């Protein structure tokens, strides 16, 4: 299993370097390297998936229960999201921004020490509360973390948009001008990702509420994590709502996507610091 993870990590690193190399040396349009890159990351993704499947069998429960596992799972989810997207968008810039994230999340996970209790105490009883909660658990985790991956991509698109927009407005074209995708493309990928992320997060919250109810009959506990998740949900509701009603797009949408991702990070890490029962993940 560790070997499979090492293989995945090496391929992610290779993919990250390759994407940065093509991004730095050649201009934005070209399909050939994009295919090669998708192959490299695809192989890494397969190895990573196999490692997770093995861990699942070994542990007997969905093995995304502590920060070490969550970090690797975020890397896995972003890689998967990149693969799904690379079929449609052959931009060199996007992978150069995203793939280092894939590598970093996976690397951080591998560097983290093995926790003393692999399964946090509160969580075990929460999962095994009823047969239904055992089924809900993997869905809840996957949906929420996949939404984080989509939001990460949205954030990257926002950053690319702002760089490109700034160069166009300043009429001074630096290194990014040739290499970054067009404004409309950044905007489009960003909007797609935020929509996908929003749907996933909504479903993630719904499964969480359902789980709560199964566990102790209460839907909501005002736990810090729950509150933060709700804030995240509202933060992303705004740009989607105003894009549909008032045509918010471009710079404003880009800033919103960056702000939104900051809230995501806070939800993920900050809620731990605030305590509450929902401290795993």
């Amino acid at each position, binding site marked *: 299993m560790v070997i499979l993870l090492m293989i995945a990590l090496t391929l992610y690193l290779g993919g990250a370097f390759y994407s940065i190399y093509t991004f730095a040396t050649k*201009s934005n349009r070209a399909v050939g390297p994009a295919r090669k890159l998708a192959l490299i990351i695809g192989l890494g993704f397969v190895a990573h998936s196999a490692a997770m499947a093995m861990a699942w069998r070994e542990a007997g429960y969905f093995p995304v229960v502590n920060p070490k596992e969550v970090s690797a799972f975020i890397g896995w989810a972003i890689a998967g999201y990149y693969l799904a997207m690379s079929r449609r968008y052959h931009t060199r810039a996007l992978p150069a921004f995203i793939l280092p994230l894939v590598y970093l999340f996976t690397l951080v996970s591998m560097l983290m020490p093995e926790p003393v209790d692999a399964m946090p105490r509160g969580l075990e009883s929460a999962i095994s509360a009823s047969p239904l909660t055992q089924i809900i658990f993997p869905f809840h985790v996957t949906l929420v973390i996949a939404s984080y991956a989509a939001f990460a991509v949205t954030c990257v698109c926002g950053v690319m948009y702002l760089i490109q927009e700034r160069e*166009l*407005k300043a*009429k001074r*074209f630096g290194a990014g001008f*040739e290499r970054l995708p*067009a*404004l409309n493309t950044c905007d489009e990928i960003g909007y797609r990702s935020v929509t996908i992320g929003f749907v996933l997060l909504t479903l993630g919250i719904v499964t969480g509420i359902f789980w709560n109810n199964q566990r102790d009959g209460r839907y909501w506990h005002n736990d810090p994590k729950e509150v933060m998740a709700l804030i995240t949900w509202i933060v992303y509701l705004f740009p989607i709502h105003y894009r549909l009603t008032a045509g918010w797009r*471009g*710079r404003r949408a880009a800033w919103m996507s960056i702000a939104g991702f900051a809230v995501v990070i806070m939800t993920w890490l900050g809620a731990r610091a605030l305590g509450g029962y929902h401290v795993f993940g």
Partner: protein
Amino acid sequence: MGIVLIGTSHKTAPVEVRERLAFAESRLADALRELVDREMINEGLIVSTCNRVELIAATPNGAGQPDGAVSRLNDFLIRFHQCDQSLLQKHCYYLAGQAAIKHVFRVTSSLDSMVVGEPQITGQIKEAFQRAQEAAVVGHELTRLMNRAFAVAKRVRNETGIGSSAVSISFVAVELARKVFEELKGSAVMLLGAGEMAELAAKHLLNYGANRLLIVNRTFENAVALASELKGEPVPFEEFEKRLPEAEILICSTGAPSYLIHPGHVRGALERRRNRPMLLIDISVPRNIDPAIGRLDNAFLFDVDDLESIAEANRAERKREALRAEEIIEAETEQFIRALDEGDLNAVIGAFRQHISEMAFSEFERSRKRLGDLSEDQEQALRVMINAIVNKFTHPVIKQLRDSEDGHSPYISAWRDLYHRDPHD
């Protein structure tokens, strides 16, 4: 065989001389047939564009020094165009061997062009090559050279940024549009006023996929006339504000002395476009679009100075990229020459081996009858023995040839004279 070349270009001759030496399309086939006499000139190719005339030729094997072939090209030009030797002497360059090959690679890769990196020249040379093929005056050598030249041009284009950025104002407009919209397909261009540069920019945008062209002019008749020429739609001046939201790109070029387009216009248009971005290009001097519009979100405004400075920056970039391209050409030329020598050597060695082997086996066949009945094994053993003798005999010669690998040693020319067969013979 060898490659020889005579040419004149914008660098060596003024237009009066170039047009004097140009080959009209209608006479090209005759010229090619006259050029290739199969004695000194075995294959030929004529490139004739407004910026250059190049005669590229391959000499037959054993034709001796390339000087003879070069002067044959020279004489052909004088005869065909009935001009003086002094004219050619003054304005033409004469190249042979490696220098000629390198020149062909450079020209095809657009490094010798007036606007370095402009893509037309590669197409023009491809067409010239096709003409020569139709006239049946190119064979193995020129085909090999030209195919390599086209591959080199492609490599230069892919590996350097020599042709990637726009160096004229009208193309900069296209480049900017692609940076905002990625694809121009489905977009509309509005042209306000007229003017050569603005029309050219509009044409380029249409070529790159823009679907619609709206033409606005104070004088509606002018709009109608221009619309029919550019296949656009004339729009009366009064409707300008109403139709503005339809346009992704606005090109403005009028003689008006002050701002025609104010922030209010564009703000309204953006609102109706639900903030889908707009590119505004102001080619007029004095400017017609209020620069304050450039500060609006989702509106991207460029005036003529902006376009010119982008074009200038791109030109400087091209110059840097041209240096990288020269390195590629240098390496490719070396490699081509080496492959040529190697191929040459292999052909000589192959012919030599085959000759000795044929001789040995024909002697064997002659004596075969007198040997009487032989079992299959015995016959096989004899053949193996003959092969071994041929190998032993030819080995030192082949080794000697391979060791003098530079391809120009007296050994090789001696053996080449004995054994090299021209593929056309």
